[in-house]
């Protein structure tokens, strides 16, 4: 129920924005190709439902699979560097350096590696983009625990893995979820932009470039809308997971007077 409350305000804001958008366009009446009205976009969505649905499935799969792999790899690397000093000294600087690489710019190169029409290259881009924020934030949360809580566990002769489970992981969860929210929107952007350069031709990315090339802007916007839908659904899923995984966290936030 609480989770629903969080959604009502952005939905209301969305309705207002689309209303203003539609109203402004009908008042100003610019040339159609600048910006189609929401009603035209919805019309294009209905008319091209089969293609958009297919594209959403293809792109959605790239996003979700890349996201899951990036999360698993990022979290595993974070656990590794927290557990082993040498891993920390080798992986962390490397990750920070690699993070500076504009990964999305590698999309055409990745296509060479995985084949122009294979979705693998797009998945790889998503994985790489998701990996870094998850890794860096989770590692920070795992490391920056209250030393007295670790001492308490040591006073009970708890082993390192037990300390990780009881203290470090719960402490890292808020960091992890903050990164995850960032990563979901990154993943959608990464997938669609990567699709501009290759991968399956019935995905959302090619649909946008092809429709725009044919000046069918309403169809391009319908595909963008579908991409936004993927992002919104994933964001919602993350919000729900966050509440399930950290029931204590909303208490903490309300105590600090945060929303």
């Amino acid at each position, binding site marked *: 129920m609480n989770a629903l409350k969080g959604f009502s305000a952005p939905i209301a804001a969305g309705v207002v924005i689309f209303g203003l958008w539609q109203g402004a366009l009908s008042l100003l009446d610019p040339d159609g190709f600048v910006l189609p009205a929401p009603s035209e976009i919805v019309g294009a969505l209905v008319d091209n439902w089969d293609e958009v649905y297919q594209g959403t499935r293809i792109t959605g799969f790239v996003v979700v699979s890349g996201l899951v792999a990036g999360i698993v790899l990022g979290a595993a690397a974070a656990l590794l560097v927290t557990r082993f000093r040498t891993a920390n000294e080798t992986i962390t600087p490397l990750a920070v350096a690699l993070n500076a690489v504009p990964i999305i710019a590698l999309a055409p190169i990745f296509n060479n590696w995985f084949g122009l029409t294979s979705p693998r290259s797009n998945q790889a881009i998503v994985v790489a983009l998701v990996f870094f924020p998850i890794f860096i934030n989770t590692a920070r949360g795992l490391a920056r625990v*209250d030393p*007295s*809580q670790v*001492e*308490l566990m*040591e*006073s*009970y*002769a*708890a082993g390192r893995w*037990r300390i990780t489970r*009881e*203290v470090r992981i*719960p402490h890292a*969860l808020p960091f992890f979820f903050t990164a995850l929210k960032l990563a979901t929107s990154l993943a959608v952007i990464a997938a669609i932009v990567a699709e501009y350069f290759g991968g399956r031709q019935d995905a959302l990315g090619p649909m946008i470039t092809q429709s725009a090339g044919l000046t069918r802007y309403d169809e391009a916007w319908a595909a963008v809308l579908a991409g936004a839908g993927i992002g919104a659904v994933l964001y919602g899923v993350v919000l729900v997971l966050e509440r399930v995984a*950290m029931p*204590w966290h909303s*208490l*903490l936030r309300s*105590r600090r007077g945060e929303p």
Partner: protein
Amino acid sequence: MTAIDVRGAAKVFNPGRSNQVEALSEIDLSVESGEFITLIGPSGCGKSTLLRLIASLISPSAGSVYVNAKPAEQARLDRDYGMAFQAAGLFDWRTVAKNIELPLELMGWSRGDRRRRSAEMLDLVKLGEFAKHHPSELSGGMQQRVAIARALAFSPSLLLMDEPFGALDEMTREHMQDELLRIWEETGTTVVFVTHSIPEAVYLSTRVVVMSPRPGRIAATIGVDLGNRSAATRDDTAFFKKVTEVRVALRSVEG
């Protein structure tokens, strides 16, 4: 039996660096099983450091620390002591009851036994109705009481307590002192207790250890023999005489 035997112990933090601190020097302390020892001294004189040495959370730079006739590290691995830290140190992600059950989980108690024990301990610290709350919903003093309940939960043979009552109001504090004494008498536990309050030290202990700062040393040891404590003890002239004795010793170390 000797519960704690500290011989010639010293602790230097960050040796050889610009932020080197000589926290403890030439500490000799022997505590018999069943004693209630209080460490008192000016802030920064090394009380917490000595407690952490006994707990084997840090190792001495020189000298040796034995607990229950074993090296302190072995005593820690055998879970011979329970500890309450200066800060409550509760886990926000666990409910109050689950915080108290944490050491019991690590010791492999069954779920039913854990439940029963945490309920008992919560009644003891008068927080029965907060079992299912999270620590962030409790006041600082209430959190401290949960930490005390957690330290007592598995009835360790040695209790190490670092200013556990610091955050409590006067009435709760006196109540907790009496409860601690009752537990101590009933269980025969050995207690090492750090406080800044002279009356608290005198009321609780069989022996008050006065420490001096920079580097931390044991300046005086004052035996306290007031018999069974009760509300009347706090108004007793013998009690006030001891308080004065400890105060004089403290004044001389603060120079």
